């Protein structure tokens, strides 16, 4: 028979899963809206942002109550801390999705750079895949995938740098694209940030499994 603690931990798990599904959907839709120049879809994402925020608040309350009232120790404690920290990174990812969606609205109707948009679509695919993989790993709290996630993030950092150069060159070749270019710069930086948050999620999984606090991106860190 499940204890009070187990029931409440299960609820926390569910809240986290719901949040993960929402954020994942937001990332998918916001990046899609940006790539397809779909203003209507962008608006849907912007409207959904408050749901993620209230989900995070709910999860925080559940976690705090569990800690204060059930006084968990050992792996029980680490699981709760991991969800709590992961929820805050997820919420930030959701915020970034909102900003990308707003960029879709802002960039509309300006001259574009097709090559750059192709690369952004590619980075987007990477980020979506990383997010799916990490959320998958959270369902079983299995940290095996963590090093791979960090590896993927390094690729994104690399794309970020090369794309930034390509964008600058694009502006020089055709000053008309300046407005679109500033939007591209913003979006690739957001995608790069999302990658960093996903690496944080991977770090919490390692903490959850081993109790060790690690920095998976310690050697290259933030790029700007």
């Amino acid at each position: 028979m499940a204890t009070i603690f187990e029931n409440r931990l299960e609820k926390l798990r569910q809240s986290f899963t719901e949040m993960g599904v929402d954020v994942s959907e937001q990332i998918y839709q916001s990046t899609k809206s940006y790539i397809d120049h779909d203003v209507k879809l962008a608006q849907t994402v912007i409207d959904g942002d408050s749901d993620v925020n209230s989900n995070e608040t709910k999860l925080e309350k559940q976690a705090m109550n569990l800690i204060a009232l059930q006084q968990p120790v050992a792996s029980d404690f680490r699981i709760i801390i991991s969800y709590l920290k992961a929820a805050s990174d997820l919420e930030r990812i959701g915020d970034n999705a909102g900003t990308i969606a707003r960029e879709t609205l802002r960039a509309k109707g300006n001259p574009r750079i097709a090559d750059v948009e192709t690369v952004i679509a590619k980075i987007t695919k990477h980020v979506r895949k990383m997010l799916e993989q990490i959320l998958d790993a959270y369902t079983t709290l299995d940290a095996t995938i963590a090093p791979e996630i960090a590896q993927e993030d390094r690729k994104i950092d690399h794309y970020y740098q090369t794309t930034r150069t390509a964008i600058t060159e694009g502006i020089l070749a055709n000053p008309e694209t300046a407005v679109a270019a500033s939007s591209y710069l913003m979006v690739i930086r957001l995608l790069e940030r999302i990658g960093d948050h996903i690496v944080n999620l991977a770090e919490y999984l390692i903490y959850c499994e081993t109790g060790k606090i690690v920095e998976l991106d310690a050697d290259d860190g933030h790029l700007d």
Partner: protein
Amino acid sequence: MASYNLDESYLYQAAGPFAITTQDLNVYYGNHQATFNANLKFPSNRITALIGASGSGKSTFLRSLNRLNDGIARVTGKIEYQGIDINQAAVNVYEVRRRIGMVFQHPNPFAKSIYENIAFPLKQLGMTSDLSNRVEESLRAAALWDEVHDKLQESALDLSGGQQQRLCIARAIAVKPEILLMDEPTSALDPISSRKIEATMQQLKKDYTIIIVTHNMQQAARSSDFTAFFHLGHVIEFNKTSHLFTTPRMPTTEDYISGHFG
């Protein structure tokens, strides 16, 4: 309930010096073995908590350390204190108990004045001068002085349970032991008195090595530096308290502290 391998253990190698160590300590009540090959080293000036389900052998182990099991149980193995094995018949048990004091679960002051509770054992030891200084010093160390200094001649039995327990701590330290053993010293007390005893222990560890049996895991987590987990007479894990309650090494420890036991 899962079955655990009782022969596997994790013993963290703490930095010395050690106030007292045991080597392959076994305790038998008749044919019943209550402690199995306990190998523990207690770091000086630190608080070590002994935790485990009731009947796991915590008290048995603790009482062996100052020979309180003499005549009750057969104790084999070594107990090393200051370079000598004190688990030998030739050793003076009264001297052992003066140097290794004990505070019990239920406060047991003498039916005498507060003053005499501390002075009496000192007189028994032959001390004649400086008694009142030693009484004051001990009461201060046990964080009781401020509450009783103006009623030292009143009966100890009129004190509250928490005060009585601190008086027993004062009595135990008055004879200047080096090690203080405590067997569930707060389990009969209210939370406020318990917290006072815990605070007192933090002060005392500057001068004493403390080994405390507690069934209250929050108390162990809050107030000890090291924790030993006992299960069915076996020491399953000895670890820094901060590690034992966050990343225990043994599955048995994890299950016990998480409340997943039987």
